[in-house]
């Protein structure tokens, strides 16, 4: 028996070519979870950017390191409201995050780079970076839009 809600638990190597494999799987999983097409695209984008950041920053571009990506269904109470959602957790054993750099830059300046964290924050309801032991943990959560989902339920 699996931990409740677990859908997929993937170990991959830190090779950028595998990003398209991750996107294919995550996009399909978001479709199955009932998100709208733009939400599916934006969650997929967030996961892609998160994995790319691990490859580039935590592992400095080394292609043979271990990345763990797990996806589970969650249901919880947020501000007194019942919410269903998808939780995605990313683990790596690379260099620790530098907290000071982990704040997204201003978008007013036009320059290459520094967009990934923006895309992630924009797409997800929760984005939490934690260092636990020698591991970096990133937790991303997206709740299913109850307004969209509730359209054909009573009381509308």
């Amino acid at each position, binding site marked *: 028996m699996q931990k409740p809600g677990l859908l997929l638990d993937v170990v991959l190597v830190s090779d*950028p*070519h595998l*990003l*398209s494999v991750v*996107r294919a799987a995550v996009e399909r999983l978001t479709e199955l979870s009932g998100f709208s097409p*733009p939400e599916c*695209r*934006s969650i997929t*984008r967030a996961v*892609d*950017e998160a994995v*790319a950041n691990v*490859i*580039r920053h935590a592992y400095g571009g080394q292609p043979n390191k271990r990345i763990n990506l797990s996806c589970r269904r969650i249901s919880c109470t947020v501000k007194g409201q019942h919410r269903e959602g998808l939780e995605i957790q990313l683990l790596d054993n690379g260099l620790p995050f530098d907290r000071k750099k982990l704040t997204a830059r201003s*978008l007013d300046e*036009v*320059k*290459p*780079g520094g*967009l*990934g964290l*923006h*895309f992630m924050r*924009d797409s997800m309801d929760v984005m939490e970076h934690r260092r636990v032991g020698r591991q970096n943990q990133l937790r991303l959560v997206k709740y299913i839009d109850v307004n969209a989902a509730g359209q054909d339920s009573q009381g509308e």
Partner: protein
Amino acid sequence: MQIAARRLDQATIFDITGHIDLANSPELRKTLLKELRENKTPRVILNLTGVRYIDSSGVASLVEGLKAAKDQGLRFILYGLSPAAREVLQLSRLIKIFEVFDDEQQALA
């Protein structure tokens, strides 16, 4: 990602297909900068009709192409953006700094 170049008199058109991500955005960057250095056609046009995904590293390559083009007084034009490509340029608030057209005819006009 595949890139193929078509060289016209007044423009170079790059037909790009596939996904642009960390696995190939360095190649895109290199191809664009080389073109801008070696063949100074007045317009460099990217046909993105066949591109279904661009990540932030791909956007960074496009910004570098744009900057290099501007430095030389050349135009840098995008056309055929998919919903995903448009979203990513909007999210990064960069859509307004690029010249974006619907199709090749408009890009060449």
